[in-house]
């Protein structure tokens, strides 16, 4: 937008400064003027200038010197050199120092107009590029769940990620299902020198061998029935980026042989193809299986194992890092509160204790799903154990640990009545008492069948 674009005119002739100022102000720009290079630099100290128009010939600091000083202080500023006596040598020198263009005074209105349009377009593209890169990084960080680091084991893992990410060495991530192996893989990619390249993930356990082969290598048109057009495979898509092969323990030994060759040669053929395709990618693999025993049983190749296992990162299950549970729970709560628009402020102490003590066989993925469900069914502002009842009820901690025996009895009767939908006979049977005993207790605690 023009009104936010700041132009500075630097010329020792006041009439030129005034004329250009009048011109650009009419065009909607914010304009500053300076009669010397020194004055311009002083102005630059306190202002952010987008475009400079600088006269080449000035007493004291000339335009060429001012150009290089501007580029030192504000490299992204566009500098247009003006001169009444153009020389090719000066023009070349100016362009080498980073000038955007070179104009001879007086300007043709057409030429000045076109030049300003071009420079504005460049500035806009420059700003858009920076903004898009920042947004991409933000989105990638969000998508990677911002790698929650709280417990000591995770701090160590994070420290390892920081160390190994910049290299190109293959990384092998192990851990139970749902611990976040894919998140760690993404975090490594984001911190690597390939972060602006693609991150291509393949779940090897989800595809049959033939499908996996096609997915990884791509195929040429007509390679098989149904191959209507040429398709690039994931290996090719990962060029200059990171390839993440999840559940690598599920692939056949035949596929292991093929992949081993690709990893060594960095070249392969598409299915049905005859022309080799090159792809330079950084490999990250992951598995929940314990591979060394599989190697002994000849279900996994030792040479392939050593090829992919240059650096190993093991992510412990959530039950071994209980400190992470409240932090993760809070993170997921915030996410789902934003998604659903519900007004939820946190968890009760009991609910947190329950979450921490729960074994989480599904690890972080299970915790995420539990929190999402709790947010959806929550009626109040705080998530309590009520919203977590769908987990193993035997593990539900007693909410009445600080109440009297009488109160405990009342709560229990109330709970059983509710579960029997107010049917007193059924409730009495469940409680192991006769109906009249239950009725007497209900009268004592002022309970009704529906209350």
């Amino acid at each position: 937008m023009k009104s936010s674009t700041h132009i500075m005119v630097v010329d020792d002739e006041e009439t030129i400064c005034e004329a250009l100022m009048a011109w650009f102000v009419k065009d909607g720009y914010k304009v500053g003027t300076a009669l010397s290079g020194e004055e311009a630099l002083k102005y630059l100290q306190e202002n952010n200038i987008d475009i400079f128009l600088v006269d080449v010939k000035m007493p004291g600091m000339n335009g060429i010197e001012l150009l290089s000083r501007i580029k030192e202080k504000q490299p992204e500023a566009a500098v247009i050199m003006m001169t009444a006596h153009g020389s090719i040598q000066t023009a070349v020198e100016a362009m080498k120092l980073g000038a955007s263009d070179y104009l001879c005074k007086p300007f043709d209105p057409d030429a000045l107009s076109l030049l300003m349009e071009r420079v504005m377009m460049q500035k806009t593209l420059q700003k858009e590029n920076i903004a898009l890169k920042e947004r991409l990084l933000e989105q990638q960080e969000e998508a990677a769940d911002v790698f929650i680091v709280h417990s000591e084991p995770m701090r160590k893992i994070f420290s390892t990620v920081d160390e190994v990410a910049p290299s190109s060495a293959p990384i092998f991530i192990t851990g139970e299902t749902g611990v976040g192996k894919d998140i760690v893989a993404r975090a490594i990619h984001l911190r690597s020198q390939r972060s602006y390249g693609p991150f291509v993930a393949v779940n090897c356990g989800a595809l049959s061998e033939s499908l996996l082969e096609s997915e990884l290598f791509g195929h040429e048109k007509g390679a098989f029935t149904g191959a209507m057009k040429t398709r690039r495979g994931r290996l090719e898509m990962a060029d200059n980026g990171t390839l993440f092969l999840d559940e690598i323990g599920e692939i056949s030994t035949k596929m292991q042989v093929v992949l081993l060759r690709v990893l060594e040669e960095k070249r392969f053929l598409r299915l049905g193809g005859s022309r080799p395709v090159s792809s330079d990618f950084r490999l990250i693999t992951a598995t929940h299986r314990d591979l060394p025993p599989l190697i002994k049983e000849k279900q996994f190749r030792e040479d392939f194992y050593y090829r992919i296992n240059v650096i190993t990162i093991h992510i412990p299950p959530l039950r071994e890092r209980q400190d992470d549970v409240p932090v993760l729970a809070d993170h997921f709560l915030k996410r789902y509160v934003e998604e659903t628009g519900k007004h939820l402020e946190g968890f009760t102490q009991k609910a947190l204790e329950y979450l921490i003590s729960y074994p989480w066989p599904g690890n972080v993925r299970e915790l995420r799903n539990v929190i999402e469900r709790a947010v959806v069914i929550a009626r109040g502002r705080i998530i309590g154990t009520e919203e977590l009842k769908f987990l193993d009820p035997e593990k539900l901690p007693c909410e009445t640990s600080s109440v009297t025996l009488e109160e405990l009895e009342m709560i229990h009767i109330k709970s059983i009545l509710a579960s029997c939908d107010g049917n007193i006979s059924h409730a009495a049977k469940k409680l192991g008492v006769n109906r009249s005993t239950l009725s007497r207790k209900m009268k004592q605690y002022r309970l009704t069948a529906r209350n």
Partner: protein
Amino acid sequence: MKAKQHISVEDTHLDLIPMGRIDMTAVSVIAANLQVILGLNTQILPVQPEPEYAFLARRGQYDGGKILHALAAISDGFPFRLAVVSVDIFTPILTFVFGESQLGGKAAVISLFRAKSKNREQSYNRAAKIAIHEIGHLLGIVHCRTPDCLMGFSNNLEKLDSLPLRFCQSCEFEARRRLRHLFDKPGLP
């Protein structure tokens, strides 16, 4: 915009000052268009001498800035003054200009020199457009990027000819607002 039915000296908003040897029909066309398009009551003054003080021999042109300076210095007269010349005018930084004005000020000058065409109607049309554009600047309106707005910048005749003889909605609104504020006439469109 409705034109006022009766023009009186008290109601005049703009002095139109022809200078040097000039086509007075063009001047009349300019006055009429300023009246109709902008609702500016325009008084055509007697022809003034060519602004020799503004002539720069090495360029063979007249400095628009000096003409503006002289116009602005006139102590009597009406709020706006527009000089019309048939000589070629320039601003120091450009090879030529069609017109020059003080943004939000009171003085403007336009030249018929580069607007000339073999087709007289086209010449008058161009003159009117340049005049209205410069008066737009006097009203404080900057160049507009909306296509087909007369406040769009024209750096050549082709562009000038393509523009209509009107502002876009936003510039029109702004022009009316400024005029109402300046002249505070309830009847002013």
